[in-house]
């Protein structure tokens, strides 16, 4: 298995992408991976914010039309992700953090599909209708899984003890930030309404 992974890592195209001094090599693949993530996670996150009732003013049904952009984001990430994995196949595939990330992505995508199914099921529902409890449950699962996936992706480069400490610290920071964000956003909305 190691020989097979080594042959992928040392193949001509993998070596070129990894070693070319051109910014169009490794850095651009990495940048495309980031764009895909921003659209996939960002836009599906907006749907989740509406489903959870955090932005109730947003009409629910038109959010369905964001799905093509989300799917493009997913495929950009899938293709660039496979390329990036091939460039460091041995270290990536022996890194448990990488499997945590992949599992989190799988759960997030499943949750997104489930959330979509429940949120957009009733075509005649009014735009300001609250989403069902099932849709909310899947929205929470999706946001949590995306968070783990983004965190896992960032931490693959670190040693195991740093990864564990970082994951715990980010978890605490995330809860605090979420509370702060909710407070600030509600404050901003209140100010706009009063004005």
């Amino acid at each position, binding site marked *: 298995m190691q020989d097979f992974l080594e042959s992928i890592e040392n193949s001509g195209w993998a070596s070129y992408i990894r070693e070319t001094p051109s910014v169009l090599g490794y850095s651009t693949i990495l940048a495309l991976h980031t764009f895909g993530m921003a659209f996939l996670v960002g836009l599906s996150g907006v749907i989740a914010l509406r489903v959870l009732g955090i932005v109730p003013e*947003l009409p629910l049904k038109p959010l369905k039309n964001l799905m093509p952009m989300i799917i493009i984001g997913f495929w950009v990430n899938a293709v660039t992700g496979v390329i990036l994995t091939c460039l460091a196949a041995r270290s990536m595939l022996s890194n448990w953090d990488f499997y945590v990330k992949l599992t989190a992505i799988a759960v997030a995508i499943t949750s997104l599909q489930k959330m979509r199914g429940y949120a957009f099921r009733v075509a005649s529902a009014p735009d300001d209708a609250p989403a069902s409890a099932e849709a909310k449950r899947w929205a929470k699962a999706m946001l949590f899984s995306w*968070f783990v996936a983004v965190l896992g992706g960032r931490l693959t480069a670190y040693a195991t003890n740093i990864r564990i400490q970082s994951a715990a610290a980010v978890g605490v920071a995330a809860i605090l930030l979420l509370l702060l964000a909710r407070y600030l*956003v509600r404050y901003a*909305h209140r100010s706009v309404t009063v004005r």
Partner: protein
Amino acid sequence: MRWPSVEQIIYKYLWAWGVGQSLHFVGMVLLIGTVGILDLRLLGMAKQFPVAALKKLIPWGVFGFLLCLATGLFFVTGIWANINVHPYVVLQSDVFLQLKFVFILLAGVNLLLFYATGMSRAVDRLAAGEDAPPLAKVFAGASLFFWIAVMYFARLIPSGKFQP
């Protein structure tokens, strides 16, 4: 430009840099997700949304930007503790970091012009299905381009040349 307290945090807590990076990404996703959807609407790709409703997302985008700004300052002021290079040297010699800042500035100027030209108020009145004025589309297209450029050059920063 070096901030000893920040450097001490990075020296003392091995997880600090990774946490900063993760939060920088979370901020970026919030910013691009919320600003991006508004830009796409103005460009005519999601016309089913009334613009005023989409603008309710902006505080989340602002929060994402502030998160990126705070973590970005953390990286700049504490970079000595991470790679032993003075922040001034990095800022002076890493062309990709400079380009990232240029595009953040351009995105900011674009936003100011969006408000200053009255386009912000004009698009507030757009109901579902209505087309945005051409000038608003220009601002939206520019905004999307600038933020994508910011992400692109941010990813190239480690390939920039900075020598201690």
